[in-house]
């Protein structure tokens, strides 16, 4: 992240060029969103031999970077910002990809052939022949009195993380609102840095959107043992200001008690950035609706990653089942599908969706999608600190949550990829090595 460096390289001088070509022939691909999926789309297109110009445009003042570490290693100061950068400037130059930083697209004008011009808030114009939306999602805002106080922070992008790090010195007590991946990762990081951390989760269990009940319960106990104060079914009245009125001092619960905090981190999910798609008249329903090949309802725009509502990509998933996946793996695999589309090829989504979350010494790896599961098998080995839940639908394995159990994770991921099953009765013995009991068909 180099907001302070001056842009002297070719990769940084593009916005001026783009303004200059006003009225010129609309060529090339404009990728809006210099995100994980935007980067992968550009990289995959070049690997496939796409020879038109590519502009990779982002609204942040940073070179494209990886987000996952923001709540973990970067927050804890164990990795440098430079190591989050996806590709060197030389890479982008050599591959004829123009990087544009700090431009927020507000409006897109479009011709009937799909070409058009994107207008940035700055007044700069970016003409294009094809358009890709890799605009991601934004942090859902807390709707409570006091939410605008200083010291109430979110953790979605690099500037959020930098702002959070900058105010940590004066913090003894922190409240994290939201017991999902981001909330628990950040809570674990803050706890490791010596803060007293309380997690307030509105729902009845942790990580409720991504894992099953057994895994939620495991994380609840594991985090409490490690020193987090976790309150489920938490109801909040307001955020309480400090004496001078500008900075947060705590969170008032429904019973009137106040959890003191000099920092409140909000991690209550994301909202897909569908505004540009709506303006273009694309179908939007919890994200931009796309077909199996990442193409939106206009038949030409591709939408990729967190912002896209996609057909369930798992082999054998029921027809018509849809999902919006917020993950690095999906950003990458979906971008590859979109790259093929832009090359005129129809390729299916490859690989099995997977997710990870590192919280303290708990390494969670999830393979597959639990959508529609009807039974589970729990494998637990407390002596070795390993825990897995396998999910079944009609007797077939469809997913697994694995904590510090990479062999289980890998066995399930590989079985799913090959269309194999792992019979539930045999899997129930935690001493059994899963990959030895895989069955075909």
């Amino acid at each position, binding site marked *: 992240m180099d907001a302070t460096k001056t842009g002297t390289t070719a990769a940084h001088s593009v916005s001026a060029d783009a303004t200059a070509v006003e009225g010129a022939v609309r060529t090339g691909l404009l990728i809006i969103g210099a995100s994980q999926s935007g980067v992968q789309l550009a990289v995959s297109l070049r*690997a496939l031999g796409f020879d038109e110009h590519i502009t990779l445009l982002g609204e942040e003042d940073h070179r494209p970077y*990886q987000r996952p570490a923001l709540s973990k290693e970067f927050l804890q100061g164990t990795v440098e910002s430079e190591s989050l950068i996806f590709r060197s400037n030389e890479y982008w130059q050599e591959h004829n990809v123009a990087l544009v930083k700090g431009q927020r697209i507000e409006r897109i004008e479009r011709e009937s052939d799909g070409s058009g011009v994107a207008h940035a808030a700055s007044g700069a114009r970016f003409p294009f022949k094809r358009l890709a939306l890799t605009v991601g999602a934004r942090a859902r805002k807390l709707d409570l009195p006091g939410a605008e106080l200083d010291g109430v922070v979110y953790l979605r992008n690099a500037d959020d993380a930098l702002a959070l790090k900058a105010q940590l010195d004066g913090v003894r007590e922190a409240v994290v609102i939201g017991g999902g991946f981001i909330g628990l990762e950040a809570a674990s990081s803050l706890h490791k840095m010596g803060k007293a951390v309380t997690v307030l989760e509105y729902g009845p269990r942790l990580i409720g959107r991504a894992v099953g009940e057994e895994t939620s319960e495991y994380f609840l106990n594991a985090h409490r043992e490690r020193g987090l104060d976790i309150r489920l079914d938490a109801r909040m009245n307001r955020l309480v200001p400090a004496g001078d009125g500008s900075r947060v001092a705590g969170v008032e619960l429904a019973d009137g008690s106040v959890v003191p905090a000099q920092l409140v981190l909000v991690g209550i999910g994301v909202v897909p950035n569908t505004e540009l798609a709506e303006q273009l008249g694309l179908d939007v329903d919890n994200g931009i609706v796309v077909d199996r090949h990442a193409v939106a309802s206009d038949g030409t725009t591709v939408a990729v990653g967190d912002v896209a509502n996609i057909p369930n990509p798992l082999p054998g998933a029921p027809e018509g089942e849809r999902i919006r996946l917020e993950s690095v793996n999906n950003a*990458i695999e979906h971008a590859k599908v979109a790259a093929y589309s832009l090359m005129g090829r129809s390729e299916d989504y490859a690989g099995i969706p997977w997710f*990870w979350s*590192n919280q303290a010494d708990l390494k969670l790896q999830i393979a597959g999608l639990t959508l529609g599961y009807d039974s589970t098998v729990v494998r637990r080995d407390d002596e070795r600190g390993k825990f897995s839940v396998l999910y079944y639908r009609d007797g077939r394995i469809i997913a697994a949550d694995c904590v510090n159990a*990479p*062999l289980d*994770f*890998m066995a399930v991921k*590989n079985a799913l990829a090959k269309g194999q099953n792992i019979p539930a009765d045999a899997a129930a013995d935690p001493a059994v090595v899963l990959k030895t009991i895989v069955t075909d068909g």
Partner: protein
Amino acid sequence: MPTVHFTDAEGTVRDIEGNAGDSVMETAVRNGVPGIVAECGGSLSCATCHVFVREDCLDQLPEMEEMEDEMLYGTVVDREDNSRLSCQLRLAEDTDLYVTTPEAQV
């Protein structure tokens, strides 16, 4: 400058200069070396930065921890005695490392 010599499955060699402290995986990804995917960005969660290390280079590497060892059992191309996950290999000033990337990572 530390240098990593990447040979891909077809035999093409790429010599990449890196920075001390960076991992072999980071050095590959930032320069677009094909054959290293590294979905998880180096947090030891995905096993898609698998490399085979030239035998005479193995001694200069840090010992493998249990998590890396277990992850290596899930690589797409089966592990060998000289398999490592390149996100776990940090470059030193004088590193001169020869690795081969497998045919596939995912």
